[in-house]
């Protein structure tokens, strides 16, 4: 029996969807407009691919969703949970209270119930002070009926999560199972404020994630599809609905990741630079062993500094709808303003009144979209100059992302990739795979299941080899538990960073394992 999977990726402008067969071949694909409520756009796109494909609906076994629901909620500060913030670490850390450094509007929304509790650990796992359980019981009783989600962050919980887990037990005991609990040790790494911010944001979008998941499952049911649902996460792997409702913050950067993963799959390249040209911007990222290279810098989400891993991207203001302003016969500006999704009405070649990058390539005969006569009056010499600059912008962005001067393959994806030529400076060759317009939805559909561990080891005690081995085994176990086929699980990333100034050779080890989704004949829902 042939089985099928649906992949959906919600972007700022478009909601893309694909239906793949069990050989991961594209059966049908579509691009629909993203709607304000996100959900309607998803339903439209899904309905289109399913009705075009004409395959037995009962054979659609998996549905993968990469969505911006959570990101939008944070950026717009809407639909957020009633959150309590509990930090365990007093008397340490009082000099920088939770949410200091976060924009005021977000601080007001999320900072109403903030508590600092005695406890936490030292870098080597000793307790700073004993956990103040009585205080936690008091807090739990005070929070009854007031909040529906609690963010718990304990000092050095990446080294020992004992106090966070005990706090979670106490809250559950008093407040029952319906209270959502976000533990920082499950979310981020060393760096208290950044990890705490990520945990608070996670706690704030639990309901949003729940609604997104339930809406998606309902929509599938309405189509008569009984598929197992997964969410795409920042690192290009999948999480179950149950996990996504607990850790929704891991969905915030899945869009760019999906397009990188899709580009890798379509081009069959594991190491390359990917340029995703959209309507307003181009995102340039790097594939390392088929996964996005992750950023090592603090990442801001909705203005709050966080420290979890995001794809390392350079974004430039050059897309298919980018507006060109000609000042005189020699000078011009390219963007950053764009007509965005209104290109089909605004662009000159489509009968509009705005000169865009798309008009430039059509006028120069590099693409045959719309009506070339509408741009034949433009000065070719100047257009040539503009085009050279457009290409240079992309080449500079590619160069910024490289780790050495050696030329590397460059994969072009996204609707706006018609802007770019067949050769680029710094590229060993330029690949433009089929179905590149929906690379992101494909990336969502083909995502693997992963497990990750991050721990601090004191190497003087256990040795580096044993530490790495222990971390690897744990990562593989987590991947299998998340639903990966054991035989396909591989270690995809290992990083060990010595912590400066600490004794005993303390090292932070991070290992990620990933594997293909295990085929399950029985169809599970959440």
């Amino acid at each position, binding site marked *: 029996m042939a089985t099928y999977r649906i992949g959906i990726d919600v972007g700022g402008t478009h909601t893309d969807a694909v239906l793949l067969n069990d050989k991961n071949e594209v059966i049908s694909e579509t691009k629909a407009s993203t709607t304000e409520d996100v959900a309607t756009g998803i339903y439209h796109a899904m309905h289109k691919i399913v009705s075009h494909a004409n395959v037995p609906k009962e054979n659609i076994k998996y549905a993968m969703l990469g969505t911006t629901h959570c990101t939008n909620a944070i950026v717009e500060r809407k639909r957020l949970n009633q959150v309590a913030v509990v930090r365990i670490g007093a008397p340490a850390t009082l000099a920088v209270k939770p949410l200091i450094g976060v924009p005021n509007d977000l601080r007001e929304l999320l900072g109403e119930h903030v508590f600092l509790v005695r406890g936490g650990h030292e870098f080597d796992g000793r307790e700073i002070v004993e956990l103040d359980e009585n205080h936690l019981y008091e807090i739990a009783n005070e929070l009854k009926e007031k909040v529906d989600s609690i963010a718990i962050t304990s000092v050095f919980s990446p080294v020992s999560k004992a106090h966070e887990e005990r706090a979670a037990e106490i809250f559950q005991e008093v407040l029952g199972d319906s209270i959502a609990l976000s533990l920082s040790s499950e979310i981020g790494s060393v760096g208290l404020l950044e990890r705490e911010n990520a945990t608070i944001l996670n706690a704030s979008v639990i309901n949003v994630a729940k609604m997104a998941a339930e809406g998606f499952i309902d929509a599938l049911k309405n189509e008569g599809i009984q598929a197992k649902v997964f969410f795409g996460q920042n690192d290009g792997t999948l999480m179950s609905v149950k996990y996504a409702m607990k850790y929704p913050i891991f969905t915030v950067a899945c869009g760019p990741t999906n397009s990188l993963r899709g580009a890798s799959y379509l081009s069959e390249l594991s190491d390359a630079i990917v340029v995703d040209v959209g309507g307003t911007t181009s995102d340039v990222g790097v594939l390392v062993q088929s996964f996005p290279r992750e950023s090592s*810098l603090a990442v801001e989400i909705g203005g709050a500094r966080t420290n979890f891993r995001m794809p390392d991207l350079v974004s430039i203001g050059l897309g298919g709808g980018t507006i060109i302003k000609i000042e005189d016969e020699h000078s011009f500006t390219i963007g950053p303003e764009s007509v965005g999704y209104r290109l089909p009405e605004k662009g000159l070649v489509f009968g509009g009144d705005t000169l865009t990058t798309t008009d430039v390539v059509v006028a120069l005969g590099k693409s045959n979209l719309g009506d070339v006569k509408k741009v034949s009056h433009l000065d070719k010499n100047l257009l040539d100059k503009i085009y050279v600059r457009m290409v240079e912008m992309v080449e500079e962005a590619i160069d910024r992302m490289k780790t050495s001067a050696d030329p590397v393959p460059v994969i072009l994806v996204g609707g706006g990739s018609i802007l770019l030529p067949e050769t680029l400076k710094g590229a060993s060759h330029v690949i433009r795979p089929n179905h590149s317009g929906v690379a992101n939805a494909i990336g969502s559909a083909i995502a693997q299941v992963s497990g990750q561990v991050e721990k601090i080891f004191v190497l003087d005690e256990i040795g580096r080899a044993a530490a790495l081995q222990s971390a690897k085994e744990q990562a593989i176990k987590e991947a299998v538990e998340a639903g990966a086929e054991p035989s396909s699980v591989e270690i995809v990333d290992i990083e060990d960073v010595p912590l*400066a100034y600490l004794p005993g050779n303390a090292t932070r080890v991070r290992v990620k394992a990933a594997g293909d989704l295990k085929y399950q004949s029985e169809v599970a829902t959440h």
Partner: protein
Amino acid sequence: MRKIGKQEIEDMAIGAALLGTGGGGDPYIGKLMALQAIEEYGEVILLDPEEVPDDALVVPSSMMGAPTVMLEKAPSGEEAIRAFNQLEEYLGEKIYGTFPIEAGGVNSMLPFALAARLGIPVIDADGMGRAFPELQMVTFYLDGISATPAIIADEKGNTALLSTIDNVWTERIARSATIQMGGSVMCAMYSMTAKDLKKSGITNILKLEEEIGKSIRLAKINNVNPIEKILETVNGFELFKGKVIDIDRKTESGFAKGVATFEGLEQNKGENLKLRFQNEHLIAQTNEKVLCMTPDLIAVLDSETGLPITTEGIRYGSRCVVIGIPCHPKWRTEKGIATVGPNYFGYDMAYTPVEELVKKGVTQ
């Protein structure tokens, strides 16, 4: 006398990152501590050293230990107060005001957090005019001012009084105690009279720091080139404009050591620059000549925004301007060069001031 509020702190934090010359620890956490303290206790008074009576007791407030630990286990705010109280008790005298031991990096901000809470002024002076990695690398040491008696304090309520025979012993004992106390402590050491501070410290360094941050901020608003403004503010020299093509790092005995290589752009096209660092930037040299060496300051700035880039932040492809800034004349003395010059850090070259190097260079 001037009041320091949140905007001034934001500006100084940027200047502190620049004077950190690549190291010194990220001022971010210190900035947040200062902002919170000002929010809760009100603005801080900043005094010009000349406004302080000669016989007043003044003490810098600083942290010791691993900046990584401080980023996870932030201070309570009480440990710095406890360290000051104990030192007052030991010396039998009230502390009049505080100041940063180093103007570069995280230590620049800590005195403001303490001053807001204690209601004492911050005095506009430091002991480096930049950032350096070791305890004795302060101008006070050049004039024979002792680091001890010193108090170190942790957030649990532990304090230790160090009374040592010399600064090497201070460093040795304090480092061991710091680890037992949890990896990061607050210190009160190098207590002195205001007269000594005026003589041995580097004065008006916070004002300079604030001006640096302000010129970067205003350059962005007014859409002018921030690098020119910075060079004007610090009397610096543009050494090299280029992009990072290689970065080689290693951690050796607790220090982040390495070399960054820049390929020249525009007026430097065809040349390469090597930047050697050990926590802080130490030497900038092209194939032909040395352009700047420690203790003169070498800062790497983002060529568009003018914002300083730390050694951890240097990445392949970054477009940067490398600038050199003359250090304070105190470092250019014989003892100063012996303490923080190129030989001390293991480079076999004679110290030559940056203003002479940019004119002719030193052939290697």
